[in-house]
């Protein structure tokens, strides 16, 4: 249920890094459990949570690895906590099995992924955005997640709150897909006096794993409430009883877990547009790269070029409808990314116009002049 709560920090302007802003957003959203394992470039989130959770009466534990970190987060979530972890690519790879478990058991939790230049150990201190597809498809089987993509320290704070609200509202593992550049950038963060927070729906005695209307999210009881809960990663019916050889139960569960996100996607998807009204070329951008895009587009507009951009504040579920509509209005869509075209490939599924992928995987941010050059080539 929605509620209005006082911000944990006094209202005002703060000068924080992106990682510090994530920790403050989590505390403000009501997060009271953190389990994690150190990994560059995300560790400052864990360090700040270690002392902030102590101040607000929450629980912090540094686990032995990422597998146990996400497991402990899921365990705490079923004990009633708003719970989170933060990691980077290699750690996210280790978490994948249990992220699928969280999706299948409809466990709200936040996974912050501060992306670095992969694959493998790659360049641990350098930026990348190569985990977009992994966040969606990393665990086996068919399931949905929600993923947000911040472009500023302000959004690292705001979207952490938004991500917790999505996780609790839709009972789904939710990702904040930051990157090294935004995590270590310091800039002004404005904290408002109040925060809107969603607390998971509870209803005693109701089946926690089914609902007649696939758009409705079943209530989630907690351990210790006398409900004799059955939580399992095996195929289960509405009460949680294992049904591992019934085709109808499996089909219904997998479809409902997908439908509950896809049928609510218009409420989840969060897209920003800039100067697209008369644009002939649009940039489809997200994360830190959207900052360079903004600079490039402003410059070109000043010179009379008809360019604009669509910024994806949420990456999953993917805004196919919005991209499809955009593709009918413009001649070309440029997708600059710090990976080998992960979002460009997704955009091609729904686009009616040419989608041009610009990939840069050198561990550096994509600079405004690079995007400008690519745009001029297309105009």
């Amino acid at each position, binding site marked *: 249920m929605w509620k209005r709560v006082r911000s944990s920090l006094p209202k005002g302007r703060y000068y924080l890094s992106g990682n510090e802003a994530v920790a403050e957003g989590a505390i403000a959203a009501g997060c*009271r*459990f953190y*389990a994690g394992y150190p990994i560059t470039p995300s560790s400052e989130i864990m360090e700040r949570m270690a002392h902030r959770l102590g101040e607000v009466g929450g*629980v912090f*534990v540094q*686990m*032995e*690895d990422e*597998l*146990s*970190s996400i*497991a*402990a*987060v*899921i*365990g*705490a*979530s*079923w*004990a*009633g*906590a708003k*719970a989170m972890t933060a990691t980077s690519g290699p750690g996210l790879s280790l978490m994948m*099995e*249990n992220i699928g*478990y969280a999706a299948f058991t409809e466990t709200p939790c936040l996974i912050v992924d501060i992306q670095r230049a992969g694959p493998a150990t790659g360049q641990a201190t350098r930026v990348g955005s190569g985990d977009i597809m992994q966040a969606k498809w990393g665990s086996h089987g068919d399931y949905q997640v929600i993923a947000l993509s911040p472009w500023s320290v302000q959004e690292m704070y705001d979207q952490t709150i938004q991500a917790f609200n999505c996780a609790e509202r839709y009972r789904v593992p939710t990702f904040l897909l930051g990157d090294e550049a935004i995590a270590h950038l310091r800039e002004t963060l404005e904290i408002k006096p109040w925060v809107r927070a969603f607390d998971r729906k509870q209803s005693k005695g109701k089946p926690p794993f089914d609902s007649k209307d696939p758009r409705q999210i079943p209530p989630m009881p*907690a*351990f*210790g409430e*006398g*409900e*004799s*809960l*059955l*939580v*399992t*990663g*095996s195929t289960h019916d509405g009460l*949680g*009883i*294992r049904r591992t050889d019934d085709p109808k139960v499996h089909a219904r569960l997998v479809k409902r877990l997908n439908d509950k996100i896809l049928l609510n996607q218009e409420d989840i998807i969060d897209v920003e547009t800039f100067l697209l009204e008369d644009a002939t070329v649009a940039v489809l951008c997200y994360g830190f790269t959207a900052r360079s895009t903004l600079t490039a587009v402003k410059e070109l507009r000043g010179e009379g070029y008809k360019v604009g951009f669509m910024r994806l504040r949420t990456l999953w579920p993917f805004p196919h409808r919005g991209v499809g509509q955009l593709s009918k209005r413009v001649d070309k869509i440029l997708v600059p990314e710090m990976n080998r075209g992960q979002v460009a490939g997704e955009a091609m599924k729904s686009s009616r116009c040419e989608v041009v992928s610009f990939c840069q995987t050198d561990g550096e941010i994509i600079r405004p002049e690079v995007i400008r050059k690519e745009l001029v080539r297309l105009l």
Partner: protein
Amino acid sequence: MARAMQQYLRPGIPTTPFCPGCGHGILLGLILRSIDAMEIDIREMLFVSGIGCAAWIPSPHFNADTFHTTHGRAIAFATGAKLYNPKLRVMVISGDGDLSSIGGNHLIHAARRDIDLKVICANNMIYGMTGGQVAATTPLGSTTSTTPLGNPYRPFDLCRLVEAAGGKFVARHAVTQPLALVESIKKSLSFTGFTFIEVLSPCATQFGSKNLLESAPKMMKWLMENCVTREEAEELSQEELEGKIITGEWGDVEGSTG
């Protein structure tokens, strides 16, 4: 299952899934008898398990909160639940492969942290559910579906492993030693801190069939002949102890009671 324990079983679950001769049904009953003897309200307990035959002991049979998690991670899931809500009385029940092989790292770290979890490891010395492959607990030389010429590697001594990791309450019994096992489970339930009880539970279907012990009575007899208590072991020579499994309690089992 004696009807006396019926009140602790989840209504609507007619049977257990265990093979004829499996020790896990005996262990299931003995855990409930221990809880009953301690007059603990089972609805205040959370039972966490991983993947494998033993993970099905509590889930779905126990009429309490049950948390059937991923392979190897039961202790990590349990750690999160227990740390966030310390009022939960958390028992982890899983197999030897789950807790000591794929999940071995979590076992030693939970022992080190002294998290207040009651861990019961049903050790059948083999991967039963997947068809009888060699485990980290399979005796040297035993035949399994992946060691047709005999297991070339030594097994873990799980109790010594947990004790070395800092576990203060460690015990080992076979399901053929029900009274001693119930006593240890009862002690663990009133112990504050991490407890580990290894329970030797025969798998006639997989272990027995590959090691000339194909009938359940033969496996039970094998356990009875090969398990010796710590007291009995003191009377035996090194030669007589060869291949024997020593059972009993280790560490400060009375220490943190209350």
